[in-house]
């Protein structure tokens, strides 16, 4: 949309547009670079001739990836994790946010629950005790180690709770008069009205599950059980950690385009779902986080 006629476009406006375009490009360039690298020939990548466009364009890296069953094992673990973990997060976030959004006069125990939740969010036993609990429950090397410890995303519960609280009171009062109980109120009124906020928190929890690497690294022992990000982490990051000498870099050269292709495929799901949910989350966050 162009500015209205009375607001004339001046030189500073054009300058501003250019500056903002530059900043936006900076966000995009590293991603463009890795895509180009993944589509480039080995020798061009090794010689550092790839910049923003692929050199010696080839799909070889992607074809090579098809033969890597470890990549697909990990991909499957991540998909499973997102589906199971996301579903658990989705249900529990709504179920917890709804009663906690009630006024104290309506639900006396509300503050007690909130104290427990906020306390566990701020204060925890740390890495070792957390690991031991999961080990003692025999969750190690199962999908449940990746989905159950984060079953309640507390930050999301608070976002959605604040969203529920900002819904007009008149609607719930009218529904109560019509004889609707808590469950009916939740499913028929609050959830449909809060769809933008629910879409937001669902996006957050799905992205968190897709992006998590640490729990996969310490809770999964078998290679076939590790999620995709942990696999990428082993592949891309750890060789570099050992590559303290320049000569070892040479070994990694041939891997550069392969690794680039795996990185691209790993971020692809985010790039695909993000634009569809993006329009919801801005209103979801700002309505949920700042209370006037």
């Amino acid at each position, binding site marked *: 949309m162009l500015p209205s006629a009375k607001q004339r476009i001046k030189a500073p406006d054009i300058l501003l547009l250019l500056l903002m*375009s530059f900043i*936006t490009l900076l*966000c995009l360039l590293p991603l463009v670079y890795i895509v180009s690298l993944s589509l480039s020939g080995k020798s061009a990548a090794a010689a550092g001739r790839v910049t923003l466009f692929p050199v010696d364009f080839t799909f070889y890296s992607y074809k090579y990836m098809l033969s890597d069953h470890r990549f697909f094992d990990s991909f499957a673990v991540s998909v499973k994790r997102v589906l199971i973990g996301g579903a658990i997060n989705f249900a529990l976030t709504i179920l917890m946010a709804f009663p906690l959004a009630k006024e104290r006069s309506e639900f006396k125990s509300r503050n007690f629950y909130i104290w427990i939740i*906020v306390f566990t969010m701020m204060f925890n036993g740390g890495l070792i005790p957390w690991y031991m609990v999961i080990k003692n429950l025999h969750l190690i090397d199962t999908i449940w180690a990746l989905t159950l410890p984060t079953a309640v995303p507390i930050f999301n519960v608070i976002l959605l709770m604040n969203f529920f609280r900002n819904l007009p009171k008149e609607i719930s009062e009218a529904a109560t008069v019509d004889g609707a109980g808590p469950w009916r109120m939740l499913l028929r009124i609050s959830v449909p009205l809060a769809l933008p906020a629910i879409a937001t928190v669902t996006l957050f929890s799905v992205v968190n599950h897709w992006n998590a690497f640490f729990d996969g690294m310490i809770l999964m022992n078998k290679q076939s059980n590790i999620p995709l*990000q942990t696999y990428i982490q082993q592949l891309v990051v750890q060789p570099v950690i050992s590559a303290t000498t320049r000569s070892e870099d040479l070994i990694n050269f041939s891997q550069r385009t392969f690794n680039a292709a795996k990185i691209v495929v790993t971020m692809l799901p985010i790039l695909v779902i993000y634009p569809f949910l993006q329009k919801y989350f801005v209103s979801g966050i700002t309505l949920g986080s700042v209370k006037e």
Partner: protein
Amino acid sequence: MGKKSNALQYHLMLAPGMVFIIIFGIIPLFGIAIAFQDFIPVKGITGSKWVGFDNFIYMFQLDDSKRILFNTLYISILKMIMQVLVPVGTALLLHELVFNRSKRWFQTIIYLPHFLSWVILAGILTDMLSAQGIVNKIVKGLFGDTVFFLGSNFWFPIVVVLSDVWKEFGFNAIIFLAALTAINPSLYEAAEIDGAGRLRKIWSVTLPGILPTIVLITTLNIGQVLNAGFDQIYNLYNPLVYQSGDIIDTYVYRIGLVQYQFGLATAVGSMKSLVGFVLIFISYRLAAKYANYRIF
């Protein structure tokens, strides 16, 4: 009577989530006992020897402690400053932009890096910053030699702070953009009548308008000062830059799960948790008092 049965339904709704919170949030708290033990996993908490505050005393005597605390504070305070300045600047630029359609495009793209993991970004960064990467190509063209960014104790914290800004500035701008749109338009009209130009309006109307939000965000960030970003640093660092890059969380991971010093790791971790808890408590109190902020 209706109210009572409602309350029962509410308890039922909360029950499944509370079970998980108790198992994975409350029960691990008892594990802090390990910090007071010479913990041996096969013997468990009940069988291991109690050593009182030995782990804590050892922690304070460690040469590493000062350096790690310094690194943690240094990196996280730099991040904190940059993550207010850059997003505020971005929000101002977007607010001043008169081309509305391009504004939406810009926003969509600058939020995107927030949703990519540090594993992915570290993969991209390590390649870009390697000797043959695109960044060093430019550096070589300008200065004649390559820089080993991720192997230098001088460059490493800078790379950490700048890449963090790169990833999060767009997303962090959201809250400031929201504050900007809430400014009363009549203030701008009044300023215009008084003869204020564009810069004057930014200085006298826009900035004061979002100042409370800036104060609020800064206050809330103080509570997070001991979190310098585990995912990011773990994925970017290597033994060459432990000197400048080791933070509390990466250190706990290394001494705990790599070197198996469970008692010491838990002591360091619980100390961090305790100090962090106090800081968050204070910062929320301040936010409530001066910015009228409540999380619920």
